[in-house]
């Protein structure tokens, strides 16, 4: 007997799982096809040397938005966001800064900057909240708006005008297209503090603090924080992926691993299903892809099933990755100078100033890697001892800005860079290099290959202004539906972008149900 499928979801990353769960909850018969042997995509688990376990790429997260949690009953499936983690900005002179929520502390930090930061955090939290109507639904179309589109814009306008108040609204409109460098320079003196804040505006993007649109990227991140404080992903029970997979299975979704979609089948402008790389064909009237937009359109659908200008725009999506990953297995806990052992549970940054970040970015523009990169460091094992043998630790490092295309080629660099990074961190934790058991280094091309994300990009494509909101991933496919009838997108490449939010998947499911029923 051949079962008739209502929908196929390509990819079991967290967005694919959210989308599949929401579709199944609405009564659709859904199968998720995942090429890897497990779910989670870039947010799934990973092992190092068999005995060490570590989040694959995403090592920090914010609690999922209330409506996503609620719709999939995630809490019932064991979803427990981790405990809040502070961010510690490491300083060469030991005057580290520590930031939790609206509070920042550290040696020689002036009261004026402390309160300026509290105000800034308040204001930008408000700005981020004002974006809510736009983030939690499909972006409005620019042409031929329907009722939902107008409602979204009206709600957005209302939130900006009434939610923020007049003075705040003007400030929002003034800064929203600015860069984070200028904004922070206006209100804060302390270089350390500015570097710390700006790091969150640029990490995962091909941008320095002076790049246009970095206020927006910062606001997106602050938006994710509305669900609760940042935590360190520590795997297993609390991990969002397990809960999502359990919720999806509970709703009747069939999860099939080791199933690589090679082609999305199209007949006369409408999808009819997919073909796997082994040749097997699965039929379904709806296909929802969480693979990145370029892979979905150029490889899975193929230019011959798309219009020429659309194809050209897809091919020009900016999405070369800007981040690399270093995983290190450690035989013990590193001692960070000036920090107590508890600090391993926090997020550590090497982003001492905005100039430092801007320089790190400058190199990437010329296909070079700065020898002073932006580093984001976590120790998931500090939260979950099961991730490493007793007393041992795993360290996860995000390295920015690591250009996808490196002039000298990645191969040679990949041999030496891990040691340089370890040495750099070792300046703050002198015993670090003595503890190294093994390491693995994921370059952007390797991320591209292993996680099947073109460019290896954090967001499946830059979240520059011209690729955001009603332009994400591109005009002509910005409401999750595509020029191919029955084909939808639901991954990080769609609005509102990457990170562990589940919002693309949730918004996409709404859109599928709206158009398919």
């Amino acid at each position, binding site marked *: 007997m051949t079962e008739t499928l209502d929908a196929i979801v390509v990819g079991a990353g967290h967005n694919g799982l959210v989308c599949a769960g929401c579709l199944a909850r609405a009564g659709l018969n859904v199968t998720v096809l995942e090429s890897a042997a497990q779910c989670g995509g870039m947010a799934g688990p990973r092992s190092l040397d068999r005995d060490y376990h570590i989040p694959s790429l995403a090592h920090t997260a914010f609690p999922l938005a209330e409506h996503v949690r609620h719709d999939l009953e995630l809490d019932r499936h064991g979803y427990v966001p981790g405990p809040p983690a502070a961010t510690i900005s490491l300083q060469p002179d030991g005057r580290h800064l520590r930031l939790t929520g609206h509070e920042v502390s550290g040696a020689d930090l002036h009261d004026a900057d402390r309160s300026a930061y509290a105000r800034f955090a308040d204001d930008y939290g408000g700005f981020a909240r004002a974006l809510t109507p736009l983030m939690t639904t499909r972006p409005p179309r620019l042409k031929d708006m329907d009722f939902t589109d107008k409602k979204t814009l009206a709600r957005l306008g209302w939130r900006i005008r009434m939610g923020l108040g007049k003075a705040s609204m003007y400030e929002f409109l003034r800064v929203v297209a600015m860069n984070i460098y200028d904004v922070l320079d206006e209100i804060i003196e302390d270089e350390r503090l500015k570097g710390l804040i700006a790091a969150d505006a640029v990490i995962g993007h091909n941008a320095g603090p002076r790049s246009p649109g970095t206020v927006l990227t910062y606001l997106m991140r602050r938006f994710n924080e509305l669900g609760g404080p940042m935590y360190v992903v520590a795997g297993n029970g609390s991990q969002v992926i397990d809960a999502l997979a359990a919720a999806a299975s509970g709703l009747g979704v069939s999860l099939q691993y080791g199933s690589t979609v090679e082609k999305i089948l*199209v*007949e*006369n*402008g409408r999808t009819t299903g997919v073909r796997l790389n082994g040749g097997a064909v699965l039929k379904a009237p709806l296909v929802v892809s969480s693979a990145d937009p370029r892979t979905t359109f*150029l490889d899975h659908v*193929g*230019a*011959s*099933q*798309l*219009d*020429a*200008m*659309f*194809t*050209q725009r897809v*091919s020009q999506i900016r999405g070369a990755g800007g981040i690399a990953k270093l995983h290190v297995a450690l035989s013990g806990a590193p001692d960070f100078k000036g920090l107590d052992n508890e600090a391993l549970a926090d997020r550590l940054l090497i982003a001492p100033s905005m100039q430092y970040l801007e320089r790190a970015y400058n190199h990437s523009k010329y296909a070079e890697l700065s020898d002073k990169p932006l580093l984001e460091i976590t120790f998931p094992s500090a939260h979950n001892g099961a991730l490493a043998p007793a007393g041992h630790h795993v360290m996860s490092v995000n390295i920015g800005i690591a250009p996808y295309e490196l002039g000298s080629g990645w191969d040679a660099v990949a041999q030496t860079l891990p040691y340089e990074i370890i040495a750099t961190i070792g300046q703050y934790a002198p015993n670090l290099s003595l503890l190294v058991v093994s390491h693995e280094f994921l370059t952007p091309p390797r991320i591209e290959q292993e996680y099947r994300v073109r460019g290896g990009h954090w967001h499946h494509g830059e979240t520059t202004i011209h690729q955001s909101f009603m332009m994400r991933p591109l005009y*002509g496919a910005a409401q999750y539906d595509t*020029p191919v009838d029955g084909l939808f997108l639901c991954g990080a490449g769609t609005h509102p972008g990457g990170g562990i939010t589940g919002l693309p998947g949730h918004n996409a499911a709404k859109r599928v149900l709206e158009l398919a029923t």
Partner: protein
Amino acid sequence: MTMIEKTHFRQPLGRSPFHPRIALLSQSEEWTSWNGYMAPRVVAKLSTEYFAVRSGCSVMDLTPMEKYRISGSDARPFLDRLVTRDISGLAAGRVTYVIWCNDEGKLIDDGTLFQLGQNDYRLCSQHHQLDWLRTSAIGFDVQVEVETQQVAALAVQGPTACSVLAEAGFDDLQALQPFRFQQSACSGLPVMVSRTGYTGDLGYELWMKPNDALPVWDAIFAVQGRYDIHAIGLSALEMVRIEAGFVMPGFDFNTAESTIRAGYDRSPYEVGLGWAVSLDKGQFTGRRALLAESARPAKRRLMKIVVEGNKPVGASFIYDRRNGRQVGEIKCAAWSPILKANLALADIEFDNGRLPRELWARIDYQRELKWHSAWARCHVSEKPFYQPGHRGLTPPNRY
């Protein structure tokens, strides 16, 4: 690629390899630019040139026409996605008329597509298309090269064209059917001959190396004493193509890539080329838009009309009755000597998907520099105005 010489500014218009001969024949010196080449509007006398097409043999230099060589393993799927028409019948040795649209289903250009061999095609178009072809090539293993300068082309058209070519020493063309081509030779020089044209009469197009251009021209004109053969220019061509009901992109309608104002571009349906759109052939650029358009009542159409009387219909508006509502405008017009009629193509707005019941042209014309205005009734013609039976005969009539 050939480099442009540094003295190019002294000679802004290019010279076709046939130019030396045309320049010798030119009496009226009415030159114009055709795709950057110096091309004659009239060589000697317009009426003579017109009648050469309709009752003798005309020779026209086609070199300025844009020509593209399309090759590579994806050439066929690339072309399939490019053009609106089902080209599954196209095979080596065949030619087909094609049109192509942008994503919005608006016309970009038309042309003739030759299949030269496996994965090897030539596309001839009215306007420069390299940019569009390259854009369309994204995602295909295909090479697109301009070969406008590398191929000299000549149109030999008119009821006696076949006999003229035979007399001029071309290999037998008797069996060549419309929209086919064959490799032929003239005085030992290789010439590809296609039975194609833009005149609505019997005719051939000859494709050769630029170096062979003059000997081939001379071979044809060597039989001028036995046949009425005339070199013709663009003005005669304009008359005969209107008689044949052929539309001219960029003149009868604005092409999509050159349109700035919203709504000024046109879809195939709107210019009467709906027959060249195969919505059921699978994907092609613009299909989605055209599918949607085909489900809506027609907004407008370029119509073939015969205007009563003999007043020269220039740029005239069309009304739904005398002094009525303006419903359209004339895009091109010609007095047809052979039909003794005023012919025109007019862009006409439809009313709820229907052609207005009556059409009237208001013709403004001059008599000895004084302007007059007159009303003339217009009659729609669904068929080409002039379609002589001999044009499709294989073998063609012998003269």
